[in-house]
C-alpha cells in the first residue's frame, strides 16, 4: 500500500518536474499568432486600419477585436492570406477602403521650409532633414503610407506613383483576343 503510494507520488513528482522544466525552457514569448499575422501585413505602418501600425493591428486581429479587411495596402490578396491563416471567411473591403496603386512621397524642395513635422510623422524614418534644413524622401525606404502629407504646413509633399520600368515590370497574364463568330456562320448553324 505505502509502496504503491510512494511510487505514484514519485511518478507525479518526476512528471511535474519535467513539465515545470519544459514550461520554463520552451516558454513562448508573446502570442505566436501575432507574429504570423504581422508577417502577412505589408508593414507600411500607415494606420489606415485604425491602429497605430501593423503590429498593433495584428495584435487586435489576434484578440479578435479587429476585422481582417481593414488593410488597404495589403490588397485583396492580403485579406485572403489572413483568412487562410485564421480559418475565417474572405471579407471584401468596406466602403472607402479600396487599395491604391503603390506610390512614394515626394517633397517639393523649393517649397519645403524645414519644419521637421513630416520627419516626426514618418513611421520608418524615410525622410532625411533637420530643423530649418531642406527635407527629402529616401524613396527606397518610403512605404507610401501618406502619414507625412497631412502634417506639412506648406503642402509641399505629394504622392507619386512608382513608374513602371524594366526592373519592376511584370509579364502580363496571358490573354487572347477572341475572334467573333461571323453572323452567316451562326445563321447556317441555326438553320
Amino acid at each position, binding site marked *: 500500500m505505502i509502496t504503491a503510494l510512494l511510487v505514484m507520488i514519485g511518478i507525479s513528482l518526476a512528471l511535474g518536474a519535467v513539465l515545470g522544466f519544459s514550461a520554463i525552457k520552451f516558454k513562448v514569448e508573446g502570442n505566436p499568432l501575432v507574429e504570423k499575422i*504581422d508577417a502577412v*501585413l*505589408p*508593414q*507600411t*505602418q500607415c494606420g489606415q486600419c485604425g491602429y497605430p*501600425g*501593423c503590429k498593433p493591428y495584428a495584435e487586435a486581429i489576434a484578440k479578435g477585436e479587429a476585422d481582417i479587411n481593414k488593410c488597404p495596402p495589403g490588397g485583396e490578396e492580403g485579406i485572403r492570406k489572413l483568412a487562410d491563416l485564421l480559418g475565417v471567411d474572405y471579407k471584401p473591403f468596406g466602403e472607402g477602403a479600396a487599395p491604391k496603386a503603390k506610390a512614394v512621397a515626394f517633397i517639393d524642395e523649393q517649397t519645403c521650409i524645414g519644419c521637421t513635422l513630416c520627419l516626426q510623422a514618418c*513611421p*520608418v*524614418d*524615410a525622410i532625411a532633414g533637420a530643423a530649418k534644413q531642406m527635407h527629402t524622401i529616401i524613396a527606397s*525606404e518610403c*512605404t507610401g503610407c501618406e502619414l507625412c502629407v497631412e502634417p506639412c504646413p506648406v503642402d509641399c509633399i505629394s504622392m507619386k506613383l512608382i513608374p*513602371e*520600368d*524594366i526592373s*519592376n*515590370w*511584370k*509579364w*502580363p*497574364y*496571358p490573354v*487572347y483576343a477572341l*475572334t467573333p463568330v461571323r453572323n452567316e456562320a451562326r445563321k447556317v448553324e441555326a438553320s
Partner: protein
Amino acid sequence: MRTLFRFHGGIHPDEHKLESSESPARRAPLAKKLVLPLHQHIGNGAKVAVQVGDRVLKGQMLAGAQGMISAAIHAPTSGTVTAVAPHPVPHPSRLGGLCIHLESDGEDRWIALAPLDFHAMPKSELLGKLRDAGIVGLGGATFPTHVKYGLAPGQRIDTLVINGAECEPWITTDDRLMREHAEGIVRGIEVLRHLSGAAEVLVGIEDNKPQAIAAMRAACAAAPIEVVVVPTLYPSGGEKQLIRILTGKEVPSGGRPTNIGVACNNVATAYAIHRFVDHGEPMISRQVTVTGNVRVPQNIEVLIGTPLAEVVACAEALPGTSGYILGGPMMGLHVDDLHLPMVKSANCIIAKSGQLFPPPPPAMPCIRCTRCAQACPADLQPQDLYWFAKSNNFGKTQEFHLFDCIECGACAYVCPSHIPLVQYFRFAKSEIWQREREAQSAEVARERHEFRQFRIEREKQEKAERLAQKEKAALAAKPAVPAPLPVAADPNADPDNTLQMRVDADIARANMQMRIDAAVARAKEQAAIVQPKNTDDLTPHQQAEITEIETRRAKLREIASHAGADDEPSKSN
C-alpha cells in the same frame, strides 16, 4: 568513344539552318549613331564612366561594372558621346532603358591595345580584367563570365564544357564561328581551362554541323580538348541539358553547374575571350545570324549598339515581312520595329512572314494529355504548372519547381491545344519575383519601424536622465548662491511666527533679485564681448553716418511699436 547520356524529353523542330550557314560571315558597315544599353547582362547595370560631349576611342570603357554580378560596356567605335538617356531596348516590356548614345566619327580609331599574358597573372586579376573587358556569356543568357569562375572556397571544377550545340532552329552564328575561327576558339578555351583548372575539356557540337565539327577537331588536335558530337535534339544546347548529355551529371534544382564541378561556356564566349587576351579587344561586337524572310540570309559581324534596322538592311528584308524575332523562334523576343540597338545577347534576327511563321491557332482548353510533360527537358509537369499559374496559385507553382523551367518552349511546341504555356510560366515567375521584392521591402520597413520606436523610447529616456542630472546639479550648486542677507529678527517678539515668515519671504525675494541682477550683468558682459570690433577707429564721417542710421532705426522702431500696439502682436515682427 564516349558514352553519351540522354536528357528527358526534347523535340525536333524544323532546323532551317542551311539558309544562312553556307555563306561566309561578313562585317556590317559602320553605323553613324550607336546606342549602348547599360544593362546588357544579367545582374546590375553598368555605371556610366564618361560624360556627354566626351570624345572616346574604339574599345574605351564607357561604363564600368557595378557590384558583384555586372560587366563593363565599351565604345564600339571612336566618336563622341552625345547623350546618356533612355532609349527603347530589346526587352519584352517594350520599355526604355538608360543608354549611352555615341556618334561615330568614321575613323574607327582604337585605343592602345595590348595582349595579356594570362599565365603570368593571378586568377583574381584575370577575372577582374574579364569583367572590365565586358566579357559575358554569348549563348543567350549573358551571364558575366568572371562570376562563373569566381569559385567559393572548397569548390573545384573537374570538367569544362564548351557549348557549340546551337540547338535552336534558324541560328547559325556558332556554326559559322567554329568553321571560320576554330583556332581562336581553342585559344579562348585554353584561357578558360587555365581559369577553371579543369582536367577534362569537352566541346559539345550537334551532329547537324559536320564542317564545324571537322574544323574544331582539326584545331583541337594538339590540345587536350575532346570534341564530342551530340545528337541533334532541341534543347541540347541548354547548359543543364548539354552537361547531362556529356557527363551524365544533373545540375541540382536551384543550383549552378559549379555545384557539381562543371563549368559551361559558349564557343562565342571563348572566341571573345581569345580576342581580349590575345589582341586586347574588349567585347564590342558579336556575330549575328540574319535570316527568315530576307533576300540574303547570312551571318554578320555587328558592333554592339548598331541599330537593328541597319543590320537587317545588310540582308535585305523581303516584302511581306510582318515583324522580327530577336533570338531564335523558340525562345526569342518578338519585336515590331527595328529602332532597337544590337546588344550582347542578340544571336539572331529573323524576319517573320505569314508564310514562315503563321499566327498560332487560338488556344483551346488543356485536355491534360501530358505531351508537354513528355517533352519537358527539365522533367517538370507543365500541365500542372499551367493549371497553378493560370489560377494565380504561385506557391503551388514553386512547389512544382517552376524555377527549374528554362523557358525553352518545348511544351508549347507540342501542345495540341496550342496553349502558350511559356507565357504562363513567365507570368508566374515575374509575379513571384514581385512578391519577393515586396516581402523584402516589408521586412526592411518593419525593421526601420521597430528601430524608430526603440529610438524614440531611448531619446525619451535620455531626456529624462538629462533633466534629472540637471536638477541634481542645480541642487548641488545651491550653496554657491550668495548667502542670504543678514537679518536681525527676534523670534521671541513674534509669537505667531508670522513676522519670521514675512522676513523669510523678503529674504527669498531679495535673493531672487540678486540672482536676476547677476544674470543681467552676465548677459551684458557677454553682449559686450560679442559686440563687433570694427567700430573702434572710425573716421568722423563714418561715425556721423552710423548715428544717422541709428536715429532712423530708432524712429522706425517707435513706429513699429505703435503699430504693434494697434495691430495683432503676431504681425509686429
